[in-house]
């Protein structure tokens, strides 16, 4: 009796792992197919532009406002600590480096996942549930090339721009609080920042990070939508899973990328 019980448990665990690996394999094949068949999305660029509008332009307000407030909070918190060591002039360095290296790509990625990623999943999932994708296939239109690829590229293009705007807005917020409100010297704020921030090591690595996050988030979003069970419940679950999985993916990838980029020791 107990042996059979144990066996059932091991089997359930095994089938769980197998189905997860199976899904991962399908997702990778899906990505490869998507990239190979994105000719339509790039040739008829208008399709991609419409998706940049949905993923990028409509996320602009939340990204800009969040960036502003994150920068303002960073300046307030940083000033409290820095002025204890008499280093309040380094406030610009603190705000700029934390935004450009980490917070810009990561927070913009998390916001992007919940704002645009979930919408992409819901849209594709609903198209599948209402059999629009099957209808396209009946008309010899490849739904991956026509529906999925423009959304993917739209997200991949939007994400680095959103992250850059988030960082720029955050630095502006830090300037507002640090210089205008608290009264840190404006010259020291900018010049120390400019001396410490390196274009290739800091800014360019931040752009690469946000690009990687963009690929990861939109890949997860389009795959979850495409793979969603064609029911109301299935679509809602897929949407939730998109936000959870892509948030975890962002944080995990961020660790890997940071370990690769910022442990060389040759910078600063």
């Amino acid at each position: 009796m107990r042996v059979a019980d144990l066996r059932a448990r091991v089997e359930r665990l095994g089938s769980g792992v197998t189905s997860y690996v199976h899904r991962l394999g399908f997702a990778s094949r899906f990505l490869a197919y998507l990239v190979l068949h994105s000719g339509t999305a790039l040739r008829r660029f208008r399709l991609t532009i419409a998706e940049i509008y949905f993923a990028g332009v409509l996320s602009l307000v939340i990204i800009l406002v969040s960036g502003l407030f994150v920068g303002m909070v960073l300046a307030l918190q940083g000033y409290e600590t820095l002025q204890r060591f008499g280093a309040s002039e380094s406030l610009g360095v603190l705000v700029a480096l934390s935004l450009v290296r980490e917070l810009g790509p990561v927070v913009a990625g998390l916001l992007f996942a919940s704002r645009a990623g979930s919408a992409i999943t819901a849209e594709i999932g609903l198209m599948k549930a209402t059999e629009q994708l099957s209808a396209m296939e009946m008309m010899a239109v490849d739904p991956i090339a026509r529906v999925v690829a423009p959304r993917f590229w739209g997200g991949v293009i939007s994400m680095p721009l959103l992250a850059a705007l988030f960082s720029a807005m955050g630095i502006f917020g830090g300037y507002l609080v640090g210089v205008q409100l608290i009264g840190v010297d404006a010259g020291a704020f900018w010049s120390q920042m400019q001396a410490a921030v390196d274009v290739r090591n800091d800014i360019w690595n931040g752009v690469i990070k946000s690009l990687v996050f963009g690929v990861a988030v939109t890949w997860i979003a389009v795959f979850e939508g495409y793979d969603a069970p064609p029911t109301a419940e299935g679509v809602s679950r897929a949407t939730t899973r998109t936000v959870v999985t892509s948030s975890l993916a962002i944080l995990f990838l961020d660790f890997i990328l940071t370990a690769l980029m910022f442990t060389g020791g040759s910078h600063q």
Partner: protein
Amino acid sequence: MNRSTIDLWVGVFVVTGIAGLLFLALKVGNLASFSSDAAYQVQAKFANIGGLKERGPVKSAGVVVGRVASIRFDNESYEALVTLNLEAKYQFPRDTTAKILTSGILGEQYVGLEAGGDGVMLKNGDRLRLTQSAVVLENLISQFLFNKAAEGKPEAKAEPKEATK
């Protein structure tokens, strides 16, 4: 919403995004300030460079005149060989002294140049003969304690044994 409005907004979005990147690169990262093409290289040997890093500033009279290009270990003289990129518009005499200094108490280390009196100016590939190494705090403390001990003051005798271990 019709197509041209969407195109307009996407255009605005892309332009502001690129403007954000440019702001980061130019205003925050200060890409434009130091161009490496108008520069000449000089080398200097130091017995100890302390915490000097590549890309660290080279200053003269407090003004940044160049950057540290590379730091190598010279296996023949067992010294550090530091290559400095100096901006071409700043010329220094051949007997210029290079010192490794620290900005503030806990700040980063930089190379300080003190101009000499020679009439001949430094050229690309020259070597600075007069150098002064970084001050290592441990050596300074032990020196101070040995001096104290040498003075033979009774209250100083107990300290150096413990501190210099």
